[in-house]
């Protein structure tokens, strides 16, 4: 069995980002947390089934160095093969990335393709779905546990409100992960650095197709929230809070 997990880079919000009308300029990038969970789930599946795990990192020529830590982490955890897919230009259009990826993945014969459910720079949760559409594979998102049995994958999916449901999909399939079954495995510094040194990363350049569809009109910074500090003793604070909530029609 062969599994791949997709690892995207997103702006590191620890640093301030510049937002211009038609582009977002981060100071640096970091691995998308949900994708790190997809990688973790792939490693868990490897532990369960002995599957071969390949991790496909996506970057562009300006931020590809920021991908090394995430790929090193995957190698330290037990990924068998690493790809660094460098896109020929940065894009926030998931359709274009998904199409290019779908073409790249088409001859790799993966039984299971895992992605994170969403990324903070789009929040739309659509890479997995669009990828499955282009590859003509079944898709399920919102997944918190993946198992494989008799050519099918059995997944646990969050339904909201604390409810979980179990689904069965035929393999091959695309699955988007909310969180792995266990917290992300910690990798000590030395182990990470050794893995980064030893890691055999195949670098691939992909040209992106131009796809009409959803267009970004402009980016804007949300307005600063108004913060009011309510001071006084407990009674006073409670009265003022009730007043404020009534004004907002919450009470």
């Amino acid at each position: 069995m062969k599994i791949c997990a997709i690892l995207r880079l997103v702006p590191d919000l620890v640093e301030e980002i510049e937002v211009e009308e038609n582009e977002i300029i981060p100071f640096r990038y970091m691995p998308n947390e949900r994708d790190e969970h997809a990688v973790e789930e792939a490693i868990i599946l490897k532990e369960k089934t002995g599957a071969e795990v390949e991790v496909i990192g996506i970057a562009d020529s300006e931020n590809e160095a920021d991908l090394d830590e995430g790929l090193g982490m995957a190698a330290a955890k037990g990924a068998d093969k690493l790809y660094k897919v460098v896109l020929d230009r940065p894009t926030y259009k998931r359709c274009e990335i998904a199409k290019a990826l779908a073409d790249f993945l088409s001859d790799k014969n993966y039984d299971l393709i895992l992605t994170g459910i969403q990324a903070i720079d789009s929040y739309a949760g659509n890479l997995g779905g669009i990828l499955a559409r282009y590859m003509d594979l079944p898709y399920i998102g919102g997944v918190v546990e993946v198992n494989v049995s008799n050519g099918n994958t059995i997944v646990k999916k969050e339904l909201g409100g604390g409810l979980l449901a179990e689904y069965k999909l035929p393999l091959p399939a695309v699955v988007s992960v909310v969180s792995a079954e266990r917290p992300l495995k910690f990798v000590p510094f030395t182990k990470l650095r050794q893995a980064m040194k030893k890691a055999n990363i195949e670098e691939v350049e992909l040209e992106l197709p131009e796809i009409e569809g959803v267009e970004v009109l402009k980016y804007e910074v949300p307005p600063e929230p108004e913060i009011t500090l309510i001071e006084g003793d407990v009674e006073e604070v409670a009265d003022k809070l009730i007043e404020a909530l009534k004004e907002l029609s919450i009470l």
Partner: protein
Amino acid sequence: MDVEEMLETYFERINEIPNSDKFIQCIQCGTCGGSCPYGMGTLFTPRRMILAVRAGIVDEVLQSGAQWLCTSCFTCSLRCPSQIPITDAVIPALRELSLLEGNPPEELAAALMNITRYGNSFRESPRKRDRWIKEVDFEVPLISKKKKAEYLFITECFGAYHRRCKEITKAFAKLMDLLGTDYAILGNEERCIGDLVRLCGEFGLFEDLAEKNIRVFEKYEFSKIVTHDAHAYNALLREYPRFGFKKEVVHHTQFLYNNLEKLKEMFGKLDYTVTYHDSCYVGRRNGIYEEPRAVIKAIPGVKFVEMKRIKENALCCGGGGGGVWLDSFIKDHIKERPAESRVKEAASVGADVLVTACTLDVPMFEDALKVTGLEGQLEVKDISEIILEAIENS
């Protein structure tokens, strides 16, 4: 890792740490467990940890989580009749196994990852480390501009980023400003000094931090380091020399004591009953007991009272050795955290103010005041804050 591999890794690490050959001299007397603030809440006291390693059941120690129930307070190490380096070797090497297994408590894992990525545990931008200097009404010199200074002031992560601890940094910088001290800070070139990282068993990260910090130190001309962070003081004094760092390191209590005559001329009166908490890495680990007491007692109007557990017997705040990142883990194992017991002790001797000399103490004790209902009755101040208050009261 199987047990054999664990033991091999464990002894490989232990053997790198000074005096760890004493490990074999453990006489199983149990002084360590009896001295441990968490002794009642753990399945494996240091004595039983050593026994478990000898019996080849190190995996059982790791499964119990006992390796994380240690605040690195150094009481066991100081009292051990065989002088086994429990705090510096026995426990961190067990913690390293836990890190290699990939499953330390989550809060701690996040803190270590943040230090790896950003050079601080707060997940803050390294480019904002010097932001506190914009919050003061005097100029704090950067060594990159000044090039040369007598003292290099290390703020460490808590002193640079933590909302409460920054106030201590500002107070101490203000004192140096008032004293006309020739000092400077590294600003954004500073990164975590790493003592807690070392005590947590992340030896690789500690070495990396030490090497990078020393490379930055070497760029500038200064004669001494001064810091109000007890763990930074300890690491710079005791660990950094292994990596080639040879400068004098001064804790801010020593600095204040050395400037006491000048400070006395500036003091006004304070009407407080004060007690002093001996922070583990100022007192027990590094023997600084009298200097802070002399400084506090010199403030006119201050009534100084001692707690029951003082000097080498002082109770830890619970923040050291990564304890500050293990709060919920520790709360799962013990009923009363050490900081809660300590603030109750301070209140019981009639103190209005609990003075400390380690940046970690202040948030640990202030949280404990909230939990114990002592907020409003007892205040927690760093020694530099009470000194500055005495000066501003003149």
